């Protein structure tokens, strides 16, 4: 027994230098439960990136990435437990779920351990604000998406807008950002309506808009399924012909199968695959690795997440010290991911990313471009 212990101790000593070249990334994300819909595709993308990097000899040819995965079952308490376990296991970077509840439940641990944490796909710009110095997001912020779509609308010569939002969640208040940018760039907001998530019946709102003396040029909403299709149909049925602008929440097959009602709808999303662009490359890699076509842009978002980590470790020259990695992430600029270039420098943790504009045309996806948002126009995050 004693000999065994000695051998183990020697083994551990020998292993130690190797350990220094391994970056431990802890995944405390939802593989089951309600949040798995969002987290699970992101983690698939994370695996693609990690396998690719490790196959090439690690980050910079030296630092291998080791993933330690925990399922938090979409529960905040479990996330805090998993985060603590991963911190104890010595991870240098922590990946947290898409939703604010579990991420915020874990943030106390993250901050006191001084380890950077990246949310898989949270888009609320308030999350890094509340989360503090160690909390990063990995998705175009709601305010950035709204800035891009508002700028597009103004360029198209649309002068008036009407917004429909739901105060039920941060995400569904995106139209408030849109209205702010729209007004700042000289447009007029004719009015606004609120709904609740899952409301289904939008005839009252549709009638109200149809009876306006001046019809709005654009109507902006960030409602998603099942609300968005019913809202759209109600508006069209009431005779409202305004341009409809949505957000990435409606980037789903349903939106393209709505027939005449869906025709012409414009929305923002994280990226668009064009021949030879990074997203198309990623989709090829995804299919080669898994045998399936990538069905959601969240796969590529997961790939982006690891690309950010990779870039940060390159800056630290292979150091896996969490504090150094955090500082490196906070200063990253123009990192090429699968969906976009990513910049954290000058932000509070909500990355600046390009946003793709998509229009529904004949039931197909038409790419309108990926304009970079004008930083001066991006509204400040709202806490309420």
């Amino acid at each position, binding site marked *: 027994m004693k000999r065994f212990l000695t051998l183990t101790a020697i083994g551990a000593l020998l292993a130690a230098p190797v350990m220094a070249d391994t970056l431990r990334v802890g995944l405390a994300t939802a593989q089951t439960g309600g949040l798995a819909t969002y987290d699970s595709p992101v983690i698939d993308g994370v695996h693609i990136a990690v396998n690719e990097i490790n196959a090439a000899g690690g980050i910079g040819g030296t630092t291998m990435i080791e993933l330690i995965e925990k399922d938090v079952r979409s*529960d905040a308490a479990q996330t805090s437990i998993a985060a603590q376990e991963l911190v104890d296991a010595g991870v240098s970077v922590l990946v947290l779920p898409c939703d*604010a*509840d579990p991420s915020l439940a874990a943030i106390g641990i993250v901050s006191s351990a001084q380890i950077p944490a990246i949310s898989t796909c949270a888009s609320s710009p308030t999350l890094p604000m509340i989360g503090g110095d160690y909390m990063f997001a990995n998705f175009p912020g709601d305010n950035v998406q709204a800035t891009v779509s508002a700028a597009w609308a103004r360029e198209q010569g649309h002068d008036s807008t009407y917004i429909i939002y739901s105060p039920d969640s941060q995400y569904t208040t995106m139209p408030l950002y849109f209205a702010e940018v729209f007004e700042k760039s000289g447009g007029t907001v004719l009015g606004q309506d609120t709904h609740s998530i899952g409301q289904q019946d939008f005839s009252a709102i549709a009638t109200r808009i149809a009876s306006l003396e001046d019809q709005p040029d654009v109507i902006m909403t960030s409602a998603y399924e099942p609300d968005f299709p019913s809202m759209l149909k109600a508006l069209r049925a009431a005779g409202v012909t305004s341009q409809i602008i949505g957000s990435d929440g409606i980037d789903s097959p349903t939106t393209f199968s709505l027939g005449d009602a869906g025709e012409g709808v414009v929305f923002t999303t994280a990226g668009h695959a064009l021949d030879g662009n990074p997203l198309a490359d990623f989709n090829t890699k995804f299919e080669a690795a898994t045998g399936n076509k990538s069905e959601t842009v969240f796969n590529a978002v997961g790939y982006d997440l690891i690309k950010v980590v990779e870039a940060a470790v390159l800056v630290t020259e292979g150091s896996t010290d969490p504090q150094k990695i955090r500082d490196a992430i906070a200063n990253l600029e123009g990192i090429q991911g699968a969906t976009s270039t990513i910049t954290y420098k000058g932000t509070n943790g909500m990355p600046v990313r390009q946003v793709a504009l998509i229009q529904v045309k004949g039931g197909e996806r038409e790419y309108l471009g990926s304009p970079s948002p004008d930083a001066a126009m991006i509204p400040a995050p709202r806490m*309420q």
Partner: protein
Amino acid sequence: MITSPPKHIVASILGIVALCIGAALVASALGSASERILTVFFISLIAVVGMGVYSGNSGILSFGHLSFMGIGAYASALLTLPVQMKVATLPKLPEWLAGTETGLLTAITVAILFTSIVAFIIGLALNRLEGSAATIATLGLLIIVHGITIGWRDVTRGSQSFFGVPRDTTLWSAAIFCILALIVARLYRDSVSGLRLRAGRENAIAASAVGVHIRRERLIAWVLSAAIMALSGALMAHFLGAFSPKKFYFTDTFLLLAMLIVGGMTTVTGAITGALTITIVTEVLRRFEGGFSVAGMEVPAVFGTTQIGIGLIILFAMFRKPEGLAGLKELEERFLTGHSVKPKSKDTHVTVASADPTPLTGDNLTMRFGGLVAVNGVSIEVKPSEIVGLIGPNGSGKTTLLNMLSGVLTPTEGSVQRGDMVLTNAAPHDVANHGIARTFQNIRLFNELTVYQNVLTAALSTLDGKRAIERCEAAIVAMGVAQFAENDANTLSYGDQRRVEIARALACEPSLVFLDEPAAGMNREETDELMKTLQTLTSELGLGVLIVDHDLKLINQLCDRIIVLNEGMLIAQGTPAEIRKNPAVIEAYLGHS
């Protein structure tokens, strides 16, 4: 007052304290991740035991208790949220609340009180429902409270994260509150109210007949369990620091209910067992689902194993242990002896609410069930010191008449009176308090309670519980069931169960007792023994007896007076000799000659 032997309570409290402190010491030695797991375990256990206080003791499964956890969490969080945070995130908060910032203990106390008040108001309405209707109503409660929490955006931030709550819940504060919650739940189970409620769970009609006001006891348990849920919610809020209404909705409801049901709803031991089993299985499986290697073999990650594991335990428990892994008894009840009664140790006498010679009169009683007239215009008088037999062919309305006289049924027409006291519309538990006790045609004992507890429930629920133990023991001795005092009622033979039922009626110290087929299932010796006992009670103590039986020999020998019913009508009454000769009676029993 606690109804179980003090040694049970002492053992139980020592066990709870040792378990919680021991676990906390081990976890703090193992490191901060273990501390977190155990903290969540303690908070969950508080909730499980809180659900058990109501669902276990009343027998009504509640899906709505997580709403009290939510109310407790939001109330406590709102009180402790720093003022600047409130200004930034909840600008429309009422002014008095916006300016309030209290410490953890104050906040938890206020949250518990507030939740209790809410629960009391809800309980008043919910209490009017029985069985599955009540269960479905609790489901409605969960949905409504969830809806209100989401809709009341100015105070709750709607469905968005409520964040910035001070993270004050530590392992040790969770442990101490858990000990408190477990002890409160354990004490309630064996309190007078808890015993009455459990009796009502076992048999609601019989419990009412011995004076238990079931709705009142249910309301007490409901409010107490809501208070415990609020404690759990507040601790959870201060553990997470950020939460939203979905934390207190279906997912957690089912997880916590699974713990309660797997362990056993009716005991604190069950709550602990269930929470422990599910937590341990979850923790073990969780470690494997991320992928591991065995002897050089790499097993890939299979997420979802944990949920499948929990599902399998529930299935296993329901197949093999439908009443839960811990069964229906507390651990200490299995190892320590219960209440015993020495057969003739004391100078035991069943006494009667002395000298209440007022007769009970039923006047022109009619009971219709739809088109069926079960009892038609029957007038009847029963006096103390008299044994009256009530006979008639099957379906002649005897039991219906007893049910009207004892308040189980309200007559369609006619009145029941004792002296000036009108009992026509009185609830069964009120009738029991007017010196009238009864037994049932189909034995209605509190099956999972001991013989002692069966009788004690009756003694505690009548005459304001005065001299309850004395009355209980006297009745047990008088009916000769002292040797079974510690046994569960459902383990007794049929004849003994009948005797326990009579003992339970006698413990109410009635001046009138109604016996519905007391000799059914007894052999001749047992029947003779019973007759002797009844005669003694009547002659020595002035007890009045109204007895229904098909054993005409028993009726003839025992009764001073016999009343005969046929097809809901009173066809004859008189002494046994008169009745034997009555042509109408002969016709009713034998048909036209």
